[in-house]
């Protein structure tokens, strides 16, 4: 079966490449849009406790909504294809990034901020030199959670005509062609694990040297 899957891959290189490119584009765009929207919003929310209470609670509820529900509900609203999938995946990525951006800024030691202010830093300087660097590992952990969720969610885009590697699985099940299942499932699994590892690495690089585990 593995050989058959490999043979299929070699005989349909363009089909596979297109699916992979769609999968990556869909995931990458959704993650980028969600980060651009949600990270600044989370940071702004850390300044207004009352709005934050509402927004963070809403994000926590939104987080429990199943991925398939978010994708499927796009069908009656926006129809099938790439755009509805992109909207759905962006919506899926927003809650974890928003929550972590908010938590990341909130957990900055108030003493550190106070002493920075005492040293004559402006509010903008405090944000750029103290709050953001300290919060960055937590923010990027949120982006990592969102990234893994989006890569997995992009598999489900196949159900609403969004393309991607999930197409191989849906046709594999429809035709009961076991090798096709592998052509979809193995790259998807590797992609998800790879995303997790890549963002772990990024998180470590973004952690200020003094905050890394092992540095006293």
């Amino acid at each position, binding site marked *: 079966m593995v050989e058959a899957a490999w043979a299929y891959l070699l005989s349909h290189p363009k089909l596979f490449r297109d699916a992979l490119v769609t999968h990556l584009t869909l995931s990458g765009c959704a993650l980028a849009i969600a980060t651009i929207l949600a990270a600044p919003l989370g940071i702004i929310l850390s300044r207004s406790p009352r709005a934050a209470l509402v927004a963070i609670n809403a994000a926590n*509820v939104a987080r429990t909504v199943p991925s*398939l529900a978010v994708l499927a509900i796009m069908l009656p609203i926006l129809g099938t294809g790439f755009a509805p999938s992109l909207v759905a995946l962006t919506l899926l990525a927003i809650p974890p990034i928003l929550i972590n951006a908010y938590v990341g800024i909130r957990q900055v030691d108030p003493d550190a901020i106070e002493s920075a202010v005492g040293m004559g830093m402006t509010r903008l300087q405090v944000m750029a030199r103290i709050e953001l660097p300290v919060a960055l590992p937590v923010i990027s952990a949120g982006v990592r959670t969102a990234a893994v969720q989006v890569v997995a969610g992009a598999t*489900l885009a196949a159900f609403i005509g969004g393309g991607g590697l999930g197409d191989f699985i849906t046709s594999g099940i429809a035709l009961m062609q076991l090798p096709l299942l592998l052509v979809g499932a193995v790259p998807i699994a590797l992609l998800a694990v790879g995303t997790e590892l890549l963002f772990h690495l990024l998180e470590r690089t973004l952690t200020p040297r003094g905050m890394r585990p092992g540095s006293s």
Partner: protein
Amino acid sequence: MQWALTHLDDIGWATWEHAVLVSVSVAVAFLISFAVAIWASRQPRVYPPIMGITALLYTIPSLALFALLIPLVGLGRVPAIIGLVAYSLLILIRNIATGLREVPADVVEAALGMGMGPWQLLLTIEMPLAMPVIIAGLRIATVTVIGIATIAAYINAGGLGTLIFTGIAQDFPAKIVVGAGLASGMAVGADAGLSRLERRLRARRAA
């Protein structure tokens, strides 16, 4: 939405199937996780590799995992339950192990000093003290499984995903809305109910 009113029995059946699929999966996962967590608390060496393997399982997208299970166990409820159990292990093992580890050492020592056996210690001292953390794990696992179980309908496991998928196939928005809405409602409800239980247990412990 006329459809929903005339098909309440179908909708009720799908909801029931979904609830059963989720309950069976979480229950099986809990029993496995409990045994593994106790083993890991006696043998700390095995904990990191167990976390590594279960984290790997957790990362694999559900549709891919179900697809990989088809050649081994075919379609239907069995691969669905295997997949759903696999997703719950990381969270449940981690929280049960953490809960047990956080029991104060002097409490354990006092219990041992009173002549308690290992099982009595576990059931009457360690478990009740670890319960809030264990319930927190149960909440996250249940919410996750409710969501992934919708996808299991694609491999013929039944449940609310069936409504979603037939709605997509027949271009029938009402079915999609009802299936997606009920699955979301079940997830949000489980989250709220179990976090209330968690808070109550914590409050009792603090009192």
